[in-house]
């Protein structure tokens, strides 16, 4: 059994505009000493799902199971959660300045956390451990820096202090939510290096949430790609980068400049991320997908194991043939054939687009977005998904 096993997690929030279904059935697991990367854009549900595990989404409607060492986190009472947070599961957030209390000295904040969870530890002992932790994460002169306030630390130092705090009680699992997004490249490299080293040393499980495919390529053992509150694809690291199946994963890779190095042009995914109130019918990605077929509009795909990959954990939620893996020409041919067969209804615009995929440039791509999603939730009241889709395609194809 894994350290953490999340099964069919669903989270929704009631808002005046309607019910926001932020997470819609996500399952994942992570073991000691391993790193799970969760990638997705804003609104994909990646942060909400982990915050829910920690009991940090008050007011949300939650269902599913999240077994941590066999006990369900989602049904645990507040007292038990308080014991788990910090001691068993540590958290590192994106913005260390808003996660550290501005009026308390850094050392004191770590010290208090130790004492809150271990009431038997004396003040001096807790202080010594706090200073020691600050030293471990590479803060120079830790005894002196422990007496300083968060504003006296640089961005990288603050993130180190956050890591020291997350590690102080030697948790079994660390959830890092965009831990390096606010940092410069050289500092990011230092922090990732530190996290890797400490993880190896303490045999911690790590969940790394980020939008940056570069960070994941460097850190994760397993990767979960999320889109519109669901898992689009899940695989070990290499298969995901080299043999992606889901068109969204492929699109992400092709719009990342460092992955597309050498390509003369980035290939952005047209359109905008979906509204989580009026979720598109069928596959949530279909309004932006270049391989959309008839059944994508009506049937919601489930995570199926892909075929022909040596990674048994590789699953993808897409109606394209399960052997169409990777960015190569063979896979592309398979996809095109499936799309031709899958489009029963006449879609002249879509067909034109299939004939000239290169033609969809940036300018045209937003014409898509302009029609489909610019006004956000307010404009998306029409349930006519098929029609909406047709219109969007038409714009792209006319390019």
């Amino acid at each position: 059994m894994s350290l953490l096993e999340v099964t069919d997690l669903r989270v929704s929030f009631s808002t005046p505009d309607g019910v926001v279904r932020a997470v819609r059935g996500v399952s994942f697991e992570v073991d000691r000493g391993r790193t799970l990367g969760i990638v997705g854009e804003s609104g994909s549900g990646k942060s909400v799902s982990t915050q829910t595990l920690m009991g940090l989404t008050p007011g949300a409607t939650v269902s599913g199971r999240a077994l941590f060492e066999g006990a369900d986190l989602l049904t645990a009472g507040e007292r038990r959660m308080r014991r788990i947070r910090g001691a068993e599961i540590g958290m590192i957030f994106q913005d260390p300045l808003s996660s550290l209390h501005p009026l308390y000295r850094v050392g004191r904040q770590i010290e208090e956390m130790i004492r809150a969870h271990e009431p038997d530890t004396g003040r001096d002992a807790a202080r010594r451990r706090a200073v020691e932790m600050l030293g471990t994460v590479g803060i120079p002169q830790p005894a002196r820096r422990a007496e300083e306030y968060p504003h006296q630390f640089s961005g990288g130092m603050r993130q180190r202090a956050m890591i020291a705090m997350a590690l102080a009680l030697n948790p079994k699992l660390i959830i890092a939510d965009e831990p390096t997004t606010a940092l410069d490249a050289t500092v990011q490299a230092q922090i990732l290096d530190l996290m890797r080293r400490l993880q190896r040393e303490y045999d911690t499980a790590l969940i790394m949430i980020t939008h940056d495919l570069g960070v994941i390529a460097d850190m994760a053992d397993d990767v979960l790609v999320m889109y519109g509150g669901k898992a689009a694809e899940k695989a070990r690291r290499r298969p995901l980068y080299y043999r992606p199946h889901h068109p969204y994963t492929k699109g992400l890779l092709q719009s990342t400049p460092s992955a597309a190095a050498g390509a003369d042009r980035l290939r952005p995914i047209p359109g905008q991320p979906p509204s989580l109130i009026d979720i598109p019918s069928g596959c949530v990605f279909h309004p932006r997908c270049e391989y959309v077929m008839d059944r994508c509009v009506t049937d919601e795909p489930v995570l199926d194991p892909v075929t022909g990959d040596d990674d048994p954990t590789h699953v993808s939620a897409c109606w394209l043939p399960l052997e169409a893996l990777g960015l190569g020409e063979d896979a592309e041919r398979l996809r095109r054939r499936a799309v031709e067969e899958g489009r029963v209804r006449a879609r002249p615009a879509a067909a034109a687009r299939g004939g000239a995929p290169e033609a969809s440039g940036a300018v045209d791509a937003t014409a898509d977005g302009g029609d489909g999603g610019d006004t956000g939730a307010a404009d998306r009241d029409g349930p006519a998904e098929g029609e909406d889709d047709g219109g969007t395609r038409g714009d792209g194809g006319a390019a």
Partner: protein
Amino acid sequence: MNGDASGQGDVLVAVDDVYKHFPIKQGIVFKKEIGRVHAVDGVDLQVRRGETLGIVGESGCGKSTLARCITGLHQVTAGRILFEGDDITRLGRAGLKAFRRDVQMIFQDPYGSLNPRRRVGSIIGDPFAVHSIAGGAERKRRVQELMELVGLNPEHYNRFPAEFSGGQRQRIGVARALALKPKLIVCDEPVSALDVSIQAQVINLLKDLQDELGLTYVFIAHDLSVVRYVSDRVAVMYLGKVAEAAEAEVLYGRPRHPYTAALLSAASIADPDEAERAERIVLTGDVPSPIEPPSGCRFHPRCPKAADRCVREDPPLVPREGDPPDHVTACHFPVEPGERLAHKHAAIAQVSTQPELPEAEE
């Protein structure tokens, strides 16, 4: 991009030994200057017509301040900025107004740079109003043309910024910058607030517009792969100075300054095999304070190659042995091809920048 890659080209902007210092004052009545932030500290750069000059560097290196000096938003402390041969630091009111038609800026934050209470049409039409060009129906027609040019639906003329997504707001910013047909557009982190898939849309838009309208860009970003992708030439800044400048492919392929090498090695690569192969030069410590920059070469406290000379002498920004004339490096001991810096630590350590990291177990 497709600009004049043949070599010199003709110079649109020449930044000539520019300094920008911000005084730090203390006291309530008699404000006494107690120090200066050396934000830009002697920069020489040239931007050629039709090209994209990328400027990279970490936060606090002065890249945004330099951009604001080039657009005339900051008065320089010393030095000259020549735009088509005219020194803009000495322009009068009328001259400045004309200059500001030719130079526009695109900002990082698509939320903060648009007035939320004004309609998109009037935001994009602002440059026409400021310069008293085209009124009434003519202005509306031109604004709608601009909206179409950047891929916005012209029918959304009367909407408010809040009704648009992040990527579309950035397009509004681009349309506004294009209104007066400028010669130079300074883009300050134009895509860093956007999601990856949307970021690619905006980058492609900027590239298309450059091809179509023959624009010149100064493109500032901290994301090295984005800069490589859009730029013809790249300048690397560190603590207010240019450390190295060269054609993009040359700089990324064969960096000479140890800081450039470290910066490039730190960039994350979205490719597991390459990420594993990459040898990381992990710099210790943080960027020193620009209030009292280190003596000699500013990078010496963190540099794996630093020697005594680096502490005493500030290296000039000149072509180093074996480099083409437009590849300039400010370093006494440039990195040789094939040289490995990954396992070296800073040779001349400062206490404050040399944290004691536990050693890796490998």
